[in-house]
């Protein structure tokens, strides 16, 4: 016998024709923090979603506490003491923190919900693990970090002994992460077992007891932290040495192409999400915008591109005032935009590659004249783009919903780069795409820059920002906390700015852009 609390052996899982997990192995000891690492699409979330009963596994066995379980559903998993904090929080915005925590496991008094009893119980967890939350507030009134604590308390309230955390640090600053790890360690000390899904190797090395690596749906290895290092893990994850740090091209920086002056705009939850941002982008430079997700980057980009109303301030593109102009007008003025969510904004998934490629040129000659479409021109245009940007499959009639993340993103990149604007906004351009596509998309961005265009790069991936940008602006709570030259940027000083901190003068050339 062994002391594993969870054992998953020879797991496979396909979605249609796509094999998500080919050979999954994973086991968990009681009271350990076990990291599950791999690239996007390596199958790590799928593995854990099978353990939590969201997807049924096609084959293989899952044992929980030594007992083989079949036909797992979230309900059974919860009863077996498994809790999962998803990457996307499973919290209902319009309900209160308290209601969210007890949902599905409500204490009752006669036929009504016993809110007092629930409050008392939750207080227990708040005290034990030192997690402060506000039970009376609605989810849409609390910050992301707190929402994450709510998610963890939710799993504990449901009696979880095994807590699966899917990329939990993605929404945290480096400094918040330190506090978060303290919580995890106190949970571990309390006998809870934790699965930590991540691809940030530094964090993995810091928090884990053991580490399991997956690649392309396959189990690679499980190692003790003491016996490994970051380089070995990276090689296991990717299968080869990777150089995502594209060599920066030094390009002569030209005129200012975009000027943002004291911009204010509202957000989903707050009236003023962006509070007076000023920025400029010059020809031939990449301005990276760093920051934890949700600090106003999306709203800033939407305001610039005409997808969100600007309340105050000005946006000037190449001398032309485009504040609050329509998205079409702004495009015509020379703005191109790779949006952060390719599946909603970026692509029309129910239309073909061709229809998506031509989207921004539909009213332009020679692709149409008046109301009449010229299919011949559209076909040859699409074929040319598919070839130039190496989109696969190459059949232009295929629906984009059938494409992999990387190829779908290439369509968006191809369309926007080909539109040949004065400024390119690339918002999370490599999120959820495979390594190959990451490399080629980063190369393309550098080429665009070399052609003298201005680029704004928004990314939650600090490495991406550091390796591509010429200047880096850091956003925190709707403000720019600092703009620094990429040469002076590193994880420490940018991390500090991401938390709203300030730098000493020797760290940066230009501190607090808008202050």
């Amino acid at each position, binding site marked *: 016998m062994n002391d594993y609390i969870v054992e998953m052996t020879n797991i496979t899982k396909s*979605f*249609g*024709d*796509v094999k*998500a997990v080919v050979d999954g192995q994973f086991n968990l000891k009681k009271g350990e923090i076990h990291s599950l690492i791999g690239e*996007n*699409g*390596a*199958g*790590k*979330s*799928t593995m854990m*979603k099978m353990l939590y009963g969201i*997807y049924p596994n096609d084959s293989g066995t899952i044992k929980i506490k030594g007992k083989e379980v079949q036909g797992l559903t979230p309900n059974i998993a919860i009863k077996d003491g498994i809790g999962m904090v998803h990457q996307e929080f499973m919290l209902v915005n319009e309900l209160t923190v308290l209601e969210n925590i007890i949902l599905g496991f409500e204490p009752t008094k006669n036929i009504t919900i016993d809110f007092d009893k629930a409050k008392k119980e939750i207080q227990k967890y708040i005290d034990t693990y030192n997690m402060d939350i506000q039970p009376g507030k609605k989810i849409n009134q609390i910050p992301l970090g707190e929402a994450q604590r709510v998610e963890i308390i939710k799993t504990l309230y449901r009696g979880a002994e095994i807590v699966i955390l899917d990329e939990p640090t993605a929404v945290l600053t480096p400094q918040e992460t330190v506090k978060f790890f303290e919580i995890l360690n106190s949970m571990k000390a309390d006998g809870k077992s934790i699965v930590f899904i991540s691809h940030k190797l530094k964090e993995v090395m810091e928090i884990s007891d053991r580490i399991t690596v997956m690649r392309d749906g396959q189990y690679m290895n499980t190692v003790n932290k003491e016996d490994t290092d970051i380089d070995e893990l990276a090689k296991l994850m990717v299968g080869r040495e990777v150089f995502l740090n594209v060599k920066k091209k030094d390009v002569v920086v030209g005129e200012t192409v975009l000027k943002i002056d004291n911009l204010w705009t509202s957000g989903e939850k707050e009236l003023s999400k962006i509070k007076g941002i000023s920025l400029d982008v010059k020809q031939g430079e990449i301005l990276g915008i760093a920051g934890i997700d949700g600090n106003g980057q999306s709203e800033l980009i939407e305001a610039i*591109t005409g*997808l969100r109303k600007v309340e105050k301030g000005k946006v000037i593109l190449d001398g032309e005032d485009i504040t609050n102009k*329509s*998205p*079409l007008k702004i*495009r*015509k003025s020379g703005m191109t*935009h790779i*949006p952060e969510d390719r*599946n*909603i*904004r*970026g*692509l*029309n*998934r*129910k*239309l*073909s590659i*061709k*229809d998506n490629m031509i*989207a*921004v040129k*539909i*009213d332009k000659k020679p692709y*149409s004249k008046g*109301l*009449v*479409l010229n*299919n*011949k021109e*559209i*076909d040859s245009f699409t074929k040319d783009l598919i070839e130039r940007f190496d989109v696969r499959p190459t*059949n*232009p*009639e*295929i*629906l984009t*919903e*059938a*494409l*992999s*993340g990387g190829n*779908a993103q290439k369509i968006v990149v191809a369309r926007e780069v080909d539109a040949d604007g004065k400024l390119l906004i690339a918002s999370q351009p490599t999120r*959820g795409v495979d390594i190959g596509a990451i490399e080629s998309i980063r190369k393309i961005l550098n080429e665009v820059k070399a052609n003298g265009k201005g680029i704004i790069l928004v990314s939650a991936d600090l490495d991406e920002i550091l390796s591509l940008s010429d200047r880096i602006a850091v956003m925190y709570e709707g403000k720019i906390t600092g703009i620094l030259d990429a040469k002076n940027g590193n994880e420490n000083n940018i991390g500090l700015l991401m938390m709203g901190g300030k730098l000493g003068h020797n760290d940066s050339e230009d501190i607090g852009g808008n202050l």
Partner: protein
Amino acid sequence: MVKRRTFITTKSPNKYINLLLTTLVSILIGAVIMLALGHNPIEAYIQLFKGAFVGKLNLGTTLQKFAPLLLTSLAFATAARAGVFNVGVEGELYLGAIAAAWIGYTFTSLPGPILILLCMVVAALVGAAWSYIPSSLKAYLGVNEVCVTILMNYVALYITSYLVNGPLSAKTGVPQTPTVAAGAKLAQFMKPSQANMGLFIAIGVAVLVYWILNKSTLGYKFTTVGLNPLHAEYIGIKPEKSIINSMFLSGAIGGIAGAIEVLGTYGYFLDNFSSGMAFDGMLAALIVKNDIKMVPFMAFFLAVLKSGALGMERYTGVPKSVVDTIIAVFIIFATMEALFAFLQKRKAKLVEEQI
């Protein structure tokens, strides 16, 4: 080589099989209902077929019913392309009809063809203008268009009823307008049926609509907005504009349908004449899921059922509301996307989100 086609979403060829199966199931259910009522379903269906096709009168009646059905189903499918459920075609049809009648009996001095053209244009404009109310409410305020268009049908019906009983009445005791000028009438053929040249106008409109929806930038925009308005907005297509344009076109087609009924079938506007013609058109469009190529066939099929039902009722005693029930059952099955899913290969879902 790549086939040249444009922005009709590629669906599995199985949709035709689905449709066929749905048709068969509905006919079977109809047969079961008839059996339960003590009728012979085979006899009833034979009479239905005869009632629709055999004899000049029967075939002519089928064709006469087909024209407005074709137009109203096109009207519904056009708006649906941009994601709008236009249940208000009935109202557009009524208002278009009364406008055509008024022009037709007022400007009698105009030469026939010009008068007909004027009637059609004015009817189309009136229908289109009426559709602007629900479309702008939907586009700018997000008001549920199904509710608004249904309620507006009642308003349109009462407006025409008021007009035909008051200011525009022929004062004959029957709630109808004076008869339009002889030159404004669409020539009838296959007498004694009321089949008329409106049929060819309807077919012409169908060709035009097909071209607009599938071969023009306007159609591309409707499609984009209908499938993903957020994407449309981002690539620089105004969803509001496409919603309003598609409804404008839809309303115009509805208005023309009304004009054809007045100029071709009746010669005047009769209170309450349509009794749900546009709803039948909507059903035809819904059954084929707004596939514009299939719409004419389904409209014709429903016209056959409708006109055949009369003969069936006369000769077998099966009430014609049984046919309405069959059509309703038909549409219920047709809306179920996953009904015959076992026939389809499971589609590969986008994996990226699931991993």
